[in-house]
C-alpha cells in the first residue's frame, strides 16, 4: 500500500527547462515551455493527443533536439553535452515507452540484462541474476523471466518495460502514457506501481498522460499542456478548479459528468 510521501524540496530541481520550443515543419508543437521537476516529485503532464507531451520527454532524454530553449537535466545542459556525456546521462534517466518497446527477439531475462551488461563493465553473472530478480520482484512478475514479450499481456509488458528501466537505478523516470490501452483495473495497478517505484527507488518522475485517474493517483503536481504551453500548474484540484473552457471539458469527459 502506498504511504504518504515526505514533503518535496522545492529548492532542488533535477530538471529545469526554460523557453523550450519545438516545431515539425510548419507545425509549432511546443511554444515556450518553462518547467522545473523537483527531487522526489511526481509531475504529471496532461494534455490532449498531439499537444507535444511525448515530444517534451523525448527532448529531455535527448531523443529529439529542441529548436530553442535550455534544458538542464541533473546538472547537465542537454544542448551542449557530448555524445559520451549524453550516454552517461541517459543511464541516470529511465524511459518507459507507451508501447513498452520490449525487444521482441529476446526473453524477459535478456530484455532486462541488455542495458545492464552494456553499462556496468565487469559485472558478474551472479550480480546480473540478482539485479534481474530484484526488479522483476519489484514489478511483481518474477514468473515471467523466461517468457517472450509476445507471450505477455499489455499490463505485463508495461511492468517489464518499467523493470527494464529500473535495473539501472535511474534518478529520473519518464513515463509516456503508462496506462494507455489498459483496462481500468490494470491502470490502477500501474498507477500504484509508479508510486511504489517512486517510494522504493527515490526517483523523480514525469508522467505523460491524458488519463485523469492516473494523474490524480500519481501526480504530486499537474501541468496542463495547452496550445504548446503550460497553461495551468498545481495540484489536481487546483488545476481543475476553473471555468476555463479549454480545461473543463477535459475533466468532464474523463469523469463523464
Amino acid at each position, binding site marked *: 500500500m502506498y504511504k504518504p510521501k515526505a514533503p518535496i524540496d522545492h529548492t532542488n530541481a533535477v530538471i529545469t527547462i526554460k523557453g523550450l520550443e519545438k516545431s515539425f515543419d510548419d507545425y509549432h508543437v511546443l511554444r515556450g515551455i518553462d518547467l522545473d521537476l523537483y527531487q522526489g516529485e511526481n509531475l504529471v503532464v496532461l494534455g490532449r493527443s498531439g499537444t507535444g507531451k511525448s515530444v517534451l520527454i523525448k527532448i529531455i532524454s535527448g*531523443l529529439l533536439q529542441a529548436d530553442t530553449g535550455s534544458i538542464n537535466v541533473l546538472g547537465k545542459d542537454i544542448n551542449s553535452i557530448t555524445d559520451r556525456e549524453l550516454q552517461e546521462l541517459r543511464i541516470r534517466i529511465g524511459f518507459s515507452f507507451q*508501447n513498452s*518497446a520490449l525487444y521482441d527477439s529476446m526473453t524477459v531475462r535478456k530484455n532486462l540484462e*541488455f542495458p545492464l551488461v*552494456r553499462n556496468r563493465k565487469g559485472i558478474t553473472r551472479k550480480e546480473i541474476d540478482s539485479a534481474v530478480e530484484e526488479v522483476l520482484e519489484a514489478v511483481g512478475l518474477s514468473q515471467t523471466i523466461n517468457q517472450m514479450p509476445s507471450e505477455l499481456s499489455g499490463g505485463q509488458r508495461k511492468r517489464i518495460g518499467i523493470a527494464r528501466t529500473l535495473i539501472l537505478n535511474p534518478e529520473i523516470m519518464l513515463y509516456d502514457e503508462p496506462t494507455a490501452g489498459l483496462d481500468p483495473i490494470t491502470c490502477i495497478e500501474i498507477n500504484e506501481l509508479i508510486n511504489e517505484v517512486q517510494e522504493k527507488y527515490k526517483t523523480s518522475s514525469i508522467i505523460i498522460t491524458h488519463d485523469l485517474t492516473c494523474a490524480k493517483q500519481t501526480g504530486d503536481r499537474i501541468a496542463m499542456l495547452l496550445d504548446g504551453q503550460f497553461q495551468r500548474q498545481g495540484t489536481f484540484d487546483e488545476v481543475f478548479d476553473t471555468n476555463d473552457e479549454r480545461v473543463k471539458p477535459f475533466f468532464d469527459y474523463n469523469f463523464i459528468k
Partner: protein
Amino acid sequence: MDTANSTSIQLKKKAKKPVSKINTFLISLYNINKFIIRFFKEAFLPPFEFKEIVRQCYETGVRSFPLISLTGFIVGLIFTKQSRPSLGQFGATSWLPSLVSIAIMRALAPLVTALIAAGKVGSGIGAELGSMRVTEQIDAMEVSGTKPFKFLVCTRVLATTLTIPILATYTGLVAMLGGYINVAVNEGTSFNTFVQEFFDPLTFTDFTSSLIKSIVFGFTIGIVGSYQGYYSTKGTEGVGKAANGAVVTAMFLIFIEEIVIVQMTSWFR
C-alpha cells in the same frame, strides 16, 4: 479559387516535382554515405558484440543454405544443359567443364548468391530493423545508454560481409555438382576428371575477383537493408517500404558493382 490561379499552382507543383525528387535523391545519397562512415567508425572499436555477430552469421548463412543449395545446383545443371547444344555444333562438348567453371566461378556464383541474399537476408534486415524503429525498440536501446547502431547495424553488416563470400563459394561448388551430373549422364566423365577440368582454366585473378565481389555484395546487402530499416518511418507501411527498398536498392547496386568490378578485373587479365 479562380481557374487561372489554380492552374498556375498546379504548374508550379509540376515544375517543383523533379527538383524535389533530385533533392530527395541527393539527401538520401548524403545520408547513406554518413551511415557508411558511421559504420566504419563504430564497427572496429570496442566493445565488440561477438555473440551477436555469430548469431547474425547464423541467421544470414545457415538459414540461407537450403535455398542457396537448390538454386546453385539448378543453375549449374541448367547452364551445362543449355550450353551443350552450342558446343556440340563445334564438337567441343569436352570443353563444357571449363566453360561452366569460368561462367560459374567468375560471374554466376557471386551474383546469384548476392541476389538471393538480397531478397532473403536484405529484406529480413530491413523489415526487422524497420519494425524495431516503429515500435520504438531502437529508441529504447538509445535511452538506456546502449549503442543501438553498433548492436543492430554493425553486427548485421559484418555478418553479411563475412557470410556472403562463404555462401558464394558454396554456391559455386554446388553448381559444379549440378554441372557434373549433366556431364556424367551424357559423357560418362568421372568425377575426378570433371573436377580437374573444372578448376584448370581458373586463375588466381578469378578467385580474387569473385571473393572481392562477394565481399562488396555482402557489405551492400547489409548496409542497404540496415539503412532502410534503421531510418524507416510511417508505421507498418514504413516497415513494408523498408523491406521492399532493401531488396530493390541492393539488387540495383549489386548489378552496378558487378559491372564495375568485372571491368576493373579485366585490366588485370
